[in-house]
């Protein structure tokens, strides 16, 4: 009995060590060799706001199902213009409660912009030119409980909306249980000569599948837990399930089409508040939603029915292809290439808010290396026809990879990532063993790796911010073409990759296009110059004082006005996403 208590205490100490040893006072500049729990995350945002009151604004966006506060930090230099007048960059993370390092990436981005402003030109430029909206934790309940409670690396993903997953009339009544009180939901195994697994001869902590005809040693019993509701199934109705990244408005489909969709679009309290917050910031033109894991940059579309216009795809590729090089090992492709999703934030932001939209799947386990040459794979590539070595499929775990991951935990992870198998007396199964990868493993980098991860990924956001439209307006010709008629030609050019409006937004007439407006004289005709050298102009039939236009990425557009009389003309360019411009011309 005493021995058992001691072990329990030891385990507790060990578990706590993973995320508490590096805890320190929260002060600016913030540290990133640690994880912030929900309260600390809020505290850190408040600390940044306190340290840079002029550059920041902290908004309470809404509250969650469990009444936790959802915060967003705006970084904007008011002296260069109000936030809404600048191209907006929106970053959020941790929409899945367990994907916590996404929050740290957002926090790091804020910390980077603020602490290096004034000493780094690159940073100064994006702070002065853009509005940055940073919402580190979307699923606040999920994050809070991921830290507070025992979980697997994959649980606490849901919103806290109870749902009867197993349709027995009760909600959330059979979640996994932390039988050994170590703060983790690990695996259960039982000795069984008829089992499908045997002990790995190279590392006794691991099991390998038996070959046909071979004698087994273990049967895996699934996640740590008991059959709380006595229905013969284990852990089949845990929290939720409402996946907040399937609950958004665009292309939403009900739960029978896609599990976890929620009852209807934006039925989640927090997701609805955030959608509203975003909708009130129509200047947002590029956005990132950070998740874990797998090392991926995903872009729309998320279903096979949708496609991107070629010009939009080109813009995505500028950012995506650069992101690949900034985060070695990541892949970049459409969200659908991973699997179809409906009602995800990516689709919502792209189709309904007109924002170039990326998902960053942070971290991949292959970065947990224990070998001489990190570039060389630990085992030769899987041969054709064999089960895929990547991905989460159970069948595909490569024993060499698992062995290396364990060595990584032993020698670099301070043995904190894996829990050795220990006997346990289970009320139904009897003598079993509990062990395996802990909550803070698998999808999360060990804290020592966190600084590089947050930096590389935040720099991709910075790169995208740098690509937001930078429009210049130039009156390149004022010419009297008859006694009382002048020709005024205006060129709008974009120094960056992202156009002033996506082709999709323009095609679907999502919102008004950019406008070029002349006041101060009577405009007789206006049009678009289609061939400057040959003087080809397409005049519009109506409203010659107002031209609707948009400026492509790394491109330009030229317009012409025919104006009567003399005096000073004022030309205004206004855009929902790009900054407004104006100039005057004397005739």
């Amino acid at each position: 009995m005493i021995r058992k208590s001691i072990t329990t205490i030891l385990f507790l100490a060990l578990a706590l060590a993973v995320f508490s040893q590096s805890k320190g006072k929260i002060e600016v500049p913030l540290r990133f060799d640690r994880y912030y729990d929900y309260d600390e995350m809020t505290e850190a945002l408040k600390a940044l706001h306190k340290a840079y009151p002029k550059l920041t604004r902290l908004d309470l966006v809404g509250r969650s199902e469990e009444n936790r506060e959802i915060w967003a930090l705006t970084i904007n230099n008011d002296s260069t213009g109000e936030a809404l007048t600048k191209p907006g960059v929106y970053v959020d993370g941790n929409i899945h409660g367990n994907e916590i390092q996404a929050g740290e990436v957002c926090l790091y981005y804020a910390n980077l912009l603020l602490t290096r402003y004034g000493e780094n030109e690159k940073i100064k430029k994006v702070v002065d030119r853009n509005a940055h909206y940073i919402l580190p934790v979307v699923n606040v309940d999920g994050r809070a409980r991921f830290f507070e409670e025992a979980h697997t690396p994959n649980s606490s993903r849901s919103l806290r909306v109870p749902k009867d997953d197993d349709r027995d009339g009760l909600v959330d009544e059979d979640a996994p249980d932390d039988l050994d009180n170590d703060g983790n939901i690990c695996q259960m195994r039982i000795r069984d000569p008829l089992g499908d697994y045997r002990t790995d001869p190279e590392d006794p902590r691991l099991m390998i599948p038996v070959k046909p005809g071979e004698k087994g040693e273990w049967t895996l019993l699934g996640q740590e837990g008991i059959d709380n509701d006595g229905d013969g199934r284990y852990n089949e109705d845990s929290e939720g399930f409402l996946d907040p990244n399937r609950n958004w408005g665009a292309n939403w489909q009900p739960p029978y089409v896609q599990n976890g969709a929620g009852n209807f679009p934006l039925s989640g309290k927090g997701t609805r508040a955030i959608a509203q917050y975003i909708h009130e910031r129509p200047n947002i033109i590029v956005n990132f939603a950070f998740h874990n894991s797998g090392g991926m940059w995903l872009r729309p579309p998320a279903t096979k029915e949708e496609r991107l216009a070629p010009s939009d795809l080109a813009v995505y590729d500028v950012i995506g292809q650069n992101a690949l090089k900034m985060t070695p090992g990541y892949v970049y492709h459409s969200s659908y290439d991973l699997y179809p999703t409906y009602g995800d934030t990516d689709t919502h932001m792209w189709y309904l808010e007109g924002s170039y939209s990326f998902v960053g799947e942070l971290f991949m386990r292959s970065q947990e290396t224990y070998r001489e040459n990190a570039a060389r794979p630990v085992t030769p590539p899987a041969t054709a026809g064999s089960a895929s070595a990547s991905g989460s499929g159970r069948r595909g775990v490569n024993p060499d990879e698992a062995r290396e991951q364990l060595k990584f935990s032993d020698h670099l992870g301070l043995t904190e990532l894996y829990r050795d198998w220990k006997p346990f007396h289970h009320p139904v199964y009897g003598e079993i063993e509990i062990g395996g990868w802990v909550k803070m493993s698998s999808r999360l980098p060990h804290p020592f790796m966190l600084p590089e991860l947050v930096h590389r990924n935040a720099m991709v956001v910075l790169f995208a911010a740098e690509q937001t439209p930078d429009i210049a307006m130039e009156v390149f010709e004022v010419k009297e073409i008859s006694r009382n008629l002048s020709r005024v030609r205006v060129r709008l050019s974009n120094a960056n990759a992202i156009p002033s409006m996506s082709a999709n937004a323009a095609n679907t007439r999502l919102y008004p296009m950019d406008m070029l407006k002349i006041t101060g004289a009577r405009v007789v005709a206006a049009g678009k110059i289609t061939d400057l050298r040959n003087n080809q102009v397409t005049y519009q039939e109506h409203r010659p004082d107002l031209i609707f236009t948009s400026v492509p990425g790394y491109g330009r557009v030229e317009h012409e006005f025919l104006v009567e009389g003399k005096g000073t003309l004022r030309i205004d360019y206004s855009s929902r996403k790009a900054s407004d411009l104006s100039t005057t011309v004397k005739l």
Partner: protein
Amino acid sequence: MKKWIVYRAFPALLLWLPLMGAGQAVLEAVDHAAIHAASHAAIHAANHAASQTANPAASQTANPAASQAAEHATSHAAMHAAHHAAHQAAHQAAHQAAHQAAHQAALQGVSHGVGHGVGQAEPEAANPRSPLAAQAGHTPHNAQAGHAPHTAQAGLTGLTGQSAQAAGYRTPAEVQTALKTLRKEHPREVTLHQIALSPGGQEVTLVEITTATGPVPAIFTVANLEGSSPLATEGALFLAQMLLDSAHYTRQLKWFILPQPNPDAAETFFAPLRWERSGNRKPVNDDADDQTDEDGPDDLNGDGWITLMRVADPEGTYIASPKDPRLLVPANPAKGERGRYKLYTEGTDNDGDGRYNEDAPGGINPAINFPHLFKMGDKQAGLWPGESPEVYGMMEFIFNHPEIAMAFTLGSADFCMTPPPGGRRGGASYENIRVPARLASRYGVDPEKSYSMGEIVETLKSAMPAGAREITPDMVAGMLGLGAVVNPLDEDLRFYTALSEKYKAFLKSRGATGERMAAPADKEGSFELWAYYHLGIPSFAMNLFTPPVLPPEGNAAGANQAAPSGSGKESPGDRASTPVANAGVSSRGDQAASGPPPGLRTGTPVAGTETAAAGKEEKTPPAGRKTTDPQETQLQLLRWIDATPEVKGFVPWTPVTHPQLGQAEVGGFAPYVTTTPPATMKDSLCRLQIPWLLQLSQQLPRLAIHSEKVTPLGDHLFRLEIFVENRGNLPWPIAMGTRNRQPAPVILLLEGEKFQILEGYKRAPLEQIGSNQVKKLSWVIKTEGKTTLKARIDTPLADASVREIPLGK
């Protein structure tokens, strides 16, 4: 011109009718307007006769079970007598109808049934001398009495007939008052819920009616989501009143009734300028220019209505129809026809962009803001499903009430007469599933072959550890992106078809034998589709009024035999053959461009008709969703309008000088003509059809423990069998509910002490139970000595049905 005078004098005529002798009234009516509908004359005669009987029942509140005779007289008259008058010997028919009705009513002494059913409260109320005036106060529609003087005045002073049309229907404010009155008068049965605030700042109020105390199934009823069907709102209030008049349908049922979910649009029906619209008051920049709501229609001919404009134009594509010169039809160049007119909604180009009425005030149409088949990109549908607060509030309320087991929609679509149509492409199939190569190896299947859902689930299950989370078809469907169900499931079509046959018989038994124009098709993003596909419960839409179909000239003989539309040879998929189907309730957009008859729903601005027409492709309707010749439906509509003088349904083309287009002509069908009959008909229409909803409510599953059987197997070992019965005529859940796993599960719960279950579960799911079916659940139980188990049904749908089962000795 003479006709117009008669039309305008008509309300005045009504006013005096009750004071005349029945026969004289008919004669007067027929004399003054030769094609006057016999129904009204007959009804008034009946009213008068009934009032003479002075039966004490007359002061009673409306009794839903009015006598068969009265029903027959009123429904028959209201819906079908019009063509008797028009095409048979007018005098004779009118006399017959009048005498018959009066005679029967007097004989049976059901004065109220007639007086109320006919809904002539307004003119009567306007005349203090009318013996029926006092009675009007007892009808559920008494709030409208205040409008009656307007009616009379309009008629007498020769104002437009339109205000007379609005009178008799209740404004959103009056609906609020009516609901508060219900609550005040029935505090024990009625609860009001505020479920949303419309963008225009109006409360959306839901009324809950029940006399049950325990858990009972509930029915959610919504009316007039389109805002353009005030009759539907009246229907919902009529239903509420019926439920309060007798507790028969509330003892085992809870009703949630939402009579006015779209108050913003509903209010526009009562506006001085009338054009049919469904959008709420959220500002939406339809044309994505620099201004919002800046180019709505304009009343150019000053008649208070928005209709159409036709403009002679060398590029015109329309010609006057050879069958009726009032109608415009697309010219067919292949037949040597050359277009003459361009067609626009009535109005100017207010913002000077070359388009007409392309950004009218108003916003999202809640009737198409629901998630099933939501039309992303359609500005009228909203940016996303539930963006409009009325719809969000409804969905939230419904999911907070899992006891809701059936849904009724009073509006444009009709699933009562004809089952919901199929024929949509792209539905998910669980029979032939191809697994993409990238997942095939993980699933252990061949990417080149097709599998059934069952096979895939089994394959995946075998790869999961013991006791792991269940692999369900929806998980697999999600991973594979199989998509949604888009057509009604065959198993469900069976009950829809059976009930539609019963409905036709029901109508026939109540004297409604004539043919009416088919209801518009169900709309994508509608509540009625959402209720079936996403809630997985039986969803019945009912359209209370479409114009009657009259035979063409010289073909009157067959008219009486005409069956209700949708019966007979028509297959379920055919029902979109409806005249109004394609006109929809679109209050903006390219109605004229996309095939449907231009100007059928003329109140609808045909936004930028000409602009939109260019470059828009006509969509071919999916297989199984046929459309009929739009011209034919317009001709039908004209026949009815011509035969029914109190319906001012068509504005003759009259020249106007248009500021931008020059010489133009304004005319076409009047707003609301296809959705809203004269208010005089509303009560008879409700009385005829609303009781069917009560009948439908009786179809709901009724679950109880039927019996149990205990078989001793050995020492303290028993097999327990419990038989659960469903005495309703519908299964629970229906096939769609089984598919989407959304309806509340039904669990059989075993409680007690000193027992152990060896086989079976403490909470045993019933899964699906058929209609009028008994289903067995069984357990093997070991007891410790003598004990008594309690078996109980656990579901929000039914009162706990408990059995005590003694086991052992």
